[in-house]
């Protein structure tokens, strides 16, 4: 039994959630603060796109950006000697791209529900924009933001299509759990596949239950 997919998946999902949490939160803050409704709609569409596109299409775009003969990819190779495509880092990039919309949308929804009088009050009390965000908006929206983070984590853990395209399926390097399931089934090894499947199902289930726990807290918090 090869345990490396478990380790690779855990590492990938862990780094992904840290990146996606802040990226999604800041994107949500940026969109919520926008004054122009039109710009809001367009940016929102752009940020949500990876959620509705087939992962292979997202993978295609990622390859287009980070491929070794592409501007960003060749820049990294030339100046830093880092090859992005088909490295472990590429699994993180794929997972970030795919799970970003979940974080962004949850955070945006939670931020928009913060009582606007709290924000106005903070303004008249002299709070700066960032202070309002971290002291007022963020704590009030925390349950929604946390459940967005958990969803993104689960989505990142299960990422398959875009990962296969930009990171490949290199055993011990980029083969995450979903890819390991695919490889094991292809090789007719249903027992190993079943083991990996059991891990994914268990973790995902725990994560969804955790999220329910957070949303329950949210309702309780609103009542008082």
């Amino acid at each position, binding site marked *: 039994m090869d345990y490396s997919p478990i380790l690779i998946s855990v590492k990938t999902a862990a780094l992904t959630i840290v990146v996606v949490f802040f990226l999604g939160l800041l994107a949500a803050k940026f969109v919520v603060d926008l004054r122009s409704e039109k710009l809001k709609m367009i940016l929102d569409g752009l940020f949500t796109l990876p959620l509705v596109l087939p992962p292979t299409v997202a993978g295609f775009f990622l390859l287009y950006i980070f491929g070794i003969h592409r501007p960003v990819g060749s820049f990294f190779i030339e100046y830093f000697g880092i090859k992005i495509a088909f490295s472990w880092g590429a699994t993180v990039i794929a997972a970030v791209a795919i799970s970003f919309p979940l974080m962004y949308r949850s955070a945006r929804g939670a931020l928009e529900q913060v*009582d606007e*009088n*709290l924000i*106005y*009050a*903070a*303004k*008249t*009390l*002299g*709070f*700066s924009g960032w202070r309002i965000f971290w*002291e*007022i908006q963020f*704590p*009030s929206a925390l349950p929604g933001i946390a459940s967005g983070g958990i969803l993104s984590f689960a989505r990142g853990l299960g990422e398959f299509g875009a990962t296969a395209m930009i990171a490949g399926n290199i055993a011990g390097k980029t083969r995450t759990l979903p890819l390991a399931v695919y490889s094991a089934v292809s090789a007719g090894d249903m027992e190993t596949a079943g083991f990996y499947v059991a891990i994914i199902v268990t973790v995902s289930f725990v994560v969804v239950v955790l999220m329910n726990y957070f949303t329950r807290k949210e309702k309780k*918090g609103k009542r*008082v």
Partner: protein
Amino acid sequence: MSLYVDIEKKYKGFSLKVKFETRGEILGILGASGCGKSMTLKCIAGIVTPDKGKIILNGRVLFDSGKRVNIKPQKRKVGYLFQDYALFPNKTVAGNITCAVKGNREEALKKWVSLFQLEGLEKKYPSQLSGGQKQRTALARMLASEPELLLLDEPFSALDSHLKEMLQMEMLDLLKKVNRDMILVSHSRDEVYRLCPDLMIMDQGSRVSMGETRQIFKDPVFLEAARLTGCKNFSRVRRLDKQHLDAVDWGVTLFTAQEVSGDTAYAGIRAHYFRPAEKTDENAFSVELTEVVESPFEMYVIFRVKGRRENQPMWWKLSKEEWYQKLEEKMPEYLKVEPGDVMVLKETEKKASF
């Protein structure tokens, strides 16, 4: 205080156009809900940006559309007390009060907690406070940020009615102690009458009248102002001469102490100004009872001028004792109203006051 406001704002089919200048320390703004009084406060605080106009506080220009000046709310030194108090739910009472203190937080906390009787509540969260405690915390938070002007937006509307009067008294005391300039917005005539020496009445986004509160309640001048000060009986009128008018909706001719002018369009009589009378008395008219409505502490007698079924009924408010001891058995045949109690009213000038 010197506050000059002259602003216009169009918002979702509603248009606000209001101009006023304060003279005293406390100004009340009275108006029905949706008349633009909260919007006016939000413009002064800088939360809402007017389309055009000027706002000047104690010589400081806060907003001037002509010169493209629009000071941020953070820099206006204007405190705002929200209807629901808008206490930060994730901060304690102490955290709320000190969050906007610029100097020594410990000292400020001590001072405001003792002044507003919040001792022992410093570590509680807003959700654990009663309505009155929330209100005092919000007031303390606002005052701790040392604003030049306080804006109070319906400060009692979130409270149970039995608490209101007590808290109004408390607040009056507190506000006397801190002695700041303020504007209080309300739809309750009792509140503004008790708390504000000066009053502005607003209707449909513009100013109806402004002046000393007592004077406005005595002589509202405009129909809308009379309605908002609590007058219940109105009739369209036809001018007969300088001191006589024909109240066409009631079907009586009235003698007035106030002069009836060409633009007098309505007469108003407050519900408690009727008295039983003899046929020969001045402004006496024969009445027939329509209905009697009992309230907890008073009676409303609804009547018409006799033989005028097509006419509007009038409301007479009297104490329960008076009704049960003297009048229940035998409703008087005649009622009268003193000439000085007939309010002579003009139609509100729609958006044309400036």
